[in-house]
């Protein structure tokens, strides 16, 4: 039964079942002990970071995870200073990194880039975000945070708020959370930013009890988990439309007065102003806790992939 992760690519949260996620979460529990320490289980292993798109949190947490496991890190975090700027293809860049490293972590603006890289590389490839599509390790962190705060994810009512059309974290979270038998899943967004067709078709096929709505206030009292994502201004053809939407989806203390006592609020961060600072002091705010699981979860994942059992 073991070896579920050994040598495996991580392209989509969809590719992992609950049993596998449970193994990962148990390993993450273990890794919490080394959050600020070191455990030399990946000594001599090299992780290549191929970040074609800017990132701070994801890149640094992968890097920290590898260093705490005793491994080394190579790579780039912008294309300007690399041969990609000279016109090298993604395929050739991946072939090169494949020959240097034991695992490749890739972020790219092009959709399907991680899957393509995984087809080329012999070493495992981890998707750290491909365009608007997938961000599997973020979804793993999100699910782990819920698991830490509730006895079970089954039976919860979950809301996902914001840009569900272009947001890869939101999309991956929807895929991840619908592996569990939710009481209900609310997809809360302006009409322009509703979840993409392939996401909805998957929810239907899985028989998930979901509802698309624009009205956060109307359903806030039902939620156990609210996953907030940023709405980007540039997605709106009309700036006044954006201002309207932005206001209606701002999480404030007064909005939360009708919320359940147990409600937890998650956010993949960085946030701009979609969650008011006053909310940070409420019992609902779990986004900093969520962010703190980034390193231990990625440690657990790297350990399972590279060290096997």
């Amino acid at each position, binding site marked *: 039964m073991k070896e579920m992760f050994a040598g495996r690519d991580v392209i989509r949260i969809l590719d992992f079942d609950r049993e596998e996620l449970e193994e990962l979460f148990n390993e993450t529990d273990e890794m919490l002990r080394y959050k600020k320490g070191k455990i030399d289980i990946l000594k001599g292993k090299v992780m290549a970071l191929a970040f074609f798109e800017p990132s701070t949190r994801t890149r640094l947490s992968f890097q920290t995870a590898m260093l705490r496991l005793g491994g080394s890190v190579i790579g780039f975090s912008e294309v300007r200073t690399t041969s990609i700027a000279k016109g090298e293809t*993604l395929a050739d860049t991946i072939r090169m990194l494949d020959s240097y490293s034991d695992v490749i972590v890739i972020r790219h603006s*092009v959709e399907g880039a991680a899957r393509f890289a995984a087809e080329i590389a012999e070493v495992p490839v981890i998707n750290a975000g491909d365009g608007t599509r997938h961000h599997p390790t973020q979804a793993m962190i999100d699910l782990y945070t819920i698991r830490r705060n509730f006895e079970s994810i089954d039976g919860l009512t979950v809301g996902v708020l914001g840009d569900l059309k272009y947001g890869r974290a939101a999309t991956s979270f929807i895929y991840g959370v619908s592996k569990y038998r939710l009481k209900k899943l609310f997809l809360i967004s302006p009409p322009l930013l509703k979840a993409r067709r392939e996401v909805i078709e998957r929810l239907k096929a899985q028989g998930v009890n979901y509802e698309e709505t624009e009205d956060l206030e109307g359903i806030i009292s039902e939620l156990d988990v609210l996953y907030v994502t940023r709405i980007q201004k540039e997605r709106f053809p009309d700036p006044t439309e954006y201002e309207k939407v932005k206001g209606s989806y701002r999480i404030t203390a007064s909005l939360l007065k009708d919320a359940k006592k147990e409600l937890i609020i998650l956010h993949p961060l960085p946030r701009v102003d979609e969650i008011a600072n006053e909310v940070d002091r409420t019992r609902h705010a779990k986004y900093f806790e969520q962010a703190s699981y980034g390193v231990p979860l990625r440690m657990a994942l790297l350990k399972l992939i590279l060290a096997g059992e």
Partner: protein
Amino acid sequence: MSKSERELIVRKIENGTVIDHIPAGYALHVLKILGISGKEGMRIAIVMNVESKKLGKKDIVKVENIELSEETVNRIALIAPTATINIIRNYKVVMKRKVRIPEVIEGLITCINPRCITNQPREPVTPRFRVISKNPLKIVCEYCETIMEHSEIIRQLIGE
């Protein structure tokens, strides 16, 4: 009127291919896939909207002196999934087969998502789609997961 005058007269062909059970209205699309304009000189019969036990109404295309390559058959499957292909030699059907929609379609069509890896210039990648529904035909890009409808597939295959 005699019986033969009341019926559409389409003579048997000596050698060639009969594509039968084409969904009604799609015969011209099939001809387009075959690359036939009518100016090539071979004898062609196109029968449209005739009664069919299986389909209600159907189209038939008969073309003399050609046999189809495997790739052409695969393209016809994507336009006319119900079609049957009969190869005629010396007035006899020597082979009869149904077209088959494959589980995976590789190379024949391109993804409609411009941000898909398969649409990036110079990357050595062949578009690949998984068939998620055969009737109506619906496919999903294996790289970016964009869903594509039959109408889009037809548009690409016949170049309109």
